[in-house]
């Protein structure tokens, strides 16, 4: 009895103090899944928010799944306040998975906005990916909505993951951006995407319920048909927070090879006489970075590869020669090209900063600017060894 009295006294004493922890019901929020930043016309920025639509049976029959809200503003909070004033819910950013910057905005250093945002108070996770859009952000985000599939979040994530599995996309998050700025140990690169409005999907653009056009029937001959209108097309290189260069998908694959993010890839190779074309699948890569005595850096890659397709009349010896001699030298050439492009863009995309750090000792962390400058002064050499996975040695 006594303990019950004490317990009740504690509750009586405590509960008035407890007041509210600020509950907000789940249906009183709109959940932002992507935040886009573009250049504003009248104000500094143009903010675009893509929200997940509620899922009901009726919605499943409608096209698209995202609700797009946009507003021009000088700052993020201003944009949010303006948008919340005209929607019947508050915006919740706890599900944000993507930050998308337009190319123009990125070239003007708009990524600094990420440093100004309070991720903690917005409850945005620092693992949110950062992407660049070649065109406008509105087109980019609109193009990532699929026909009759309301789950925009899943589609966007799948686009990223699937692209990554082709090895031609690099994935970067806000956390990695902050690390590159605060530690200076590598240069920031973000995937860049493009929207092609000419891609024909089976999505019906209904203006009224009675209307039902079938765009497939009306497509131009040889039109691009199917899939999403937006796709990832390469990598944007940054010097600090300013976009300074772009790599295409092929070049991105070599970038991934060089900086240890390689997953998989394919290479087309013509024989010197131009008679045959080989398509070779790169299966795995072991990367080792060596610092030479003269402070040069050599990246050694041991690749395992297999022939994906080759002309039938090619002899095994020729094939082996292509794999072990021609392919490595070709890859070294291409890797060096990519390294030069990154160097010209002032981006330590090859992560030389990390390599230099490994050789350092000290009682204090190295200042990021100093490390960055050191890293950019080093251009790596590449040494490749290719092992034919289908030969006895490869096994």
């Amino acid at each position, binding site marked *: 009895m006594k303990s019950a009295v004490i317990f009740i006294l504690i509750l009586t004493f405590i509960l008035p103090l407890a007041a509210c922890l600020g509950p907000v019901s789940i249906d009183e929020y709109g959940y932002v899944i992507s935040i886009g930043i573009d250049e504003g016309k009248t104000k500094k920025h143009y903010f675009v928010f893509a929200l997940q639509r*509620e899922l009901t049976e009726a919605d499943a029959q409608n096209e698209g799944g995202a609700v797009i809200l946009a507003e021009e503003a000088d700052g993020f909070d201003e944009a949010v306040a303006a948008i919340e004033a005209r929607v019947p819910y508050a915006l919740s950013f706890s599900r944000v998975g993507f930050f998308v910057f337009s190319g123009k905005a990125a070239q003007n250093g708009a990524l600094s906005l990420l440093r100004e945002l309070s991720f903690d108070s917005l409850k945005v996770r620092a693992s949110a990916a950062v992407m660049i859009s070649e065109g406008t952000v509105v087109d980019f985000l609109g193009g990532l909505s699929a026909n009759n599939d309301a789950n925009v979040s899943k589609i966007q994530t799948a686009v990223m993951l699937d692209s990554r599995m082709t090895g031609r996309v690099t994935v970067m998050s806000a956390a990695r951006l902050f690390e590159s700025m605060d530690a200076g140990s590598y240069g920031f690169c973000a995937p860049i995407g493009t929207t092609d409005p000419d891609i024909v999907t089976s999505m019906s653009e209904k203006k009224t319920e009675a209307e039902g056009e079938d765009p497939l029937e009306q497509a131009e001959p040889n039109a691009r048909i199917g899939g999403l209108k937006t796709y990832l097309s390469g990598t944007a290189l940054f010097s600090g927070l300013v976009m300074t260069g772009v790599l295409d998908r092929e070049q991105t694959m070599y970038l991934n090879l060089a900086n240890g993010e390689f997953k998989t890839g394919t290479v087309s190779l013509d024989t010197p006489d131009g008679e045959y074309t080989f398509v070779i699948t790169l299966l795995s890569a072991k990367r080792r970075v060596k610092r030479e005595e003269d402070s040069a850096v050599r990246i050694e890659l041991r690749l395992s590869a297999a022939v994906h397709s080759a002309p039938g009349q090619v002899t095994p010896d020729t094939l082996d020669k292509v794999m072990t001699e021609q392919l490595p030298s070709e890859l070294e050439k291409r890797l060096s090209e990519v390294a030069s492009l990154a160097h010209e863009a002032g981006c330590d995309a090859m992560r030389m900063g990390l390599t230099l750090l490994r050789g350092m000792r000290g009682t204090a962390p190295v200042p990021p600017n100093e490390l960055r400058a050191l890293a950019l002064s080093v251009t790596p050499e590449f040494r490749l060894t290719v092992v034919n996975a289908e030969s006895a040695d490869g096994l």
Partner: protein
Amino acid sequence: MDRFQALFRILSGKIKSAGGTGAPDPVPRSGGMGCDSEGSGFRPIPKKLSSVEREAGEALNFPRDPDAVLRRVKSRSGEEALAVCISGLTDEARLDEFVLQPILRSGLPLTPVAVMQGVIEVGEVRREADFNAALDAVRRGSAALFFQGADSCLILGLHGFERRQVGEAKNEQTVLGPKECFTECIKTDVALIRRHIASAELVVEQAPVSNISGTRAVLVYHFSAAKPEVVEKLREKLKEMPSAVYLTGGTAEQMLFGNTLSPMPRVLLTERPDRAASHILSGRIALLIDGSPEAVILPITLFSLMNSPEDVYMNRAVGSLLRVIRYLGALLSVLMPGYFLSLALYHQGILSTEVLSTVVASRRMVFEPIGAELLLLLIIFQLIREAGQRVPGSIGQAIGIIGGLIMGQAAVSAHLASSVVLIIVAASGLGNFCIPDYRTQLAASYIRLAFVISAWLGGLLGMTSALIVMLARLASIESFGMPYLAPLSPKRRAARPALFRGPITGGAIGRASGKSEDVM
């Protein structure tokens, strides 16, 4: 050696057993099966039969009470005897055939010893010198036979009251194993346990309860397995029990442990003799109460309440799986509604986008806040459950169907509730039914409510606070010295393991090894 001496004393009848040894014994001063007489000590039997008749009539409210029977008989030798019984409790036909008629035909002198040994044809008979004890025995269904000039009488075990037959355990059903259950007759219950434990070390001991209704109770335990200090402590607690309480299994628990506000049961009430026997063999004590069809088993832990007899009848792997599912169900039942509410109100980011969209869409036309909606559905669920129990037979089953299916669907269609919340409540209810013990189910419902309120107030923080308070409370509960959460915490002083089914090794039992067999 002490153990064998004690055993010898039991067998020689110095400590009375409830079933009766059948052997004639020195005239006892207090009754065998009965408790102490109402408020008075020893009262000698009047020598004159007329005095006996008068005093017995007064005590039994004769002739106002039409059931009291006082019958004088005279033998051929001219001596008289007086039979006293209560119609409805005593088997009058057997009294007539095996007692009164032989006396009428007898030419022997009517003395207690002579009649007991040579006249009547009754198996269970004993002499009694205490008049109060004799009347007490009559009130319990025996018949008393008084003789002119004798200082003792004969108590005849001719119980003939209507009693429920040994049926099937309705509240503890299993697929495998025995199906019989306890009844309201204490003799039958003791006999059922004796059939499961036919061991010389089984002790059946009259419980020292003293109450206004004269209810009898016995303690049943295994001499080697049970801890003597626990038995002694139980005896003391039973003696201290207030007399003005109607003794049943439920009231016994509240009297033994005090009237706390804790919803957790501290004893196990079981209606299965096999389960009671299993606990007795593992060192626990069973308290059987006349008129109560459950055995009170103590001391117990929380894990005893979560075990089902079926776990032991299956092999170890299957038994363990069943237990894991049961514990998962219990945890889901208690935590899931509160967890969902805390995510819905405070931590929406934890939910995936799909779930968020679905929940938001399902609540589109629901008018009440989500916390109120959840509480409302929990209350409705409890109403359906209570209604289903109160209404008998097939109608009761129909209520479950009507309430569950139709009301639930109707509530969603009428936008009184959302489908997601309905599923949460239904799943929680199903998990609750996985708990084998009925009182623990109700306790879990009570605790679930506390978690829902704490989640409403503080989200996961509120639930964490409530969880710590609940764990602290459970950790501090003891059942006659047995910590409630043993062997999880503390690690000793209870049978292991708690969660998974242990092996049946046939090893040493009870307190001696500390590793008793897995119990039901």
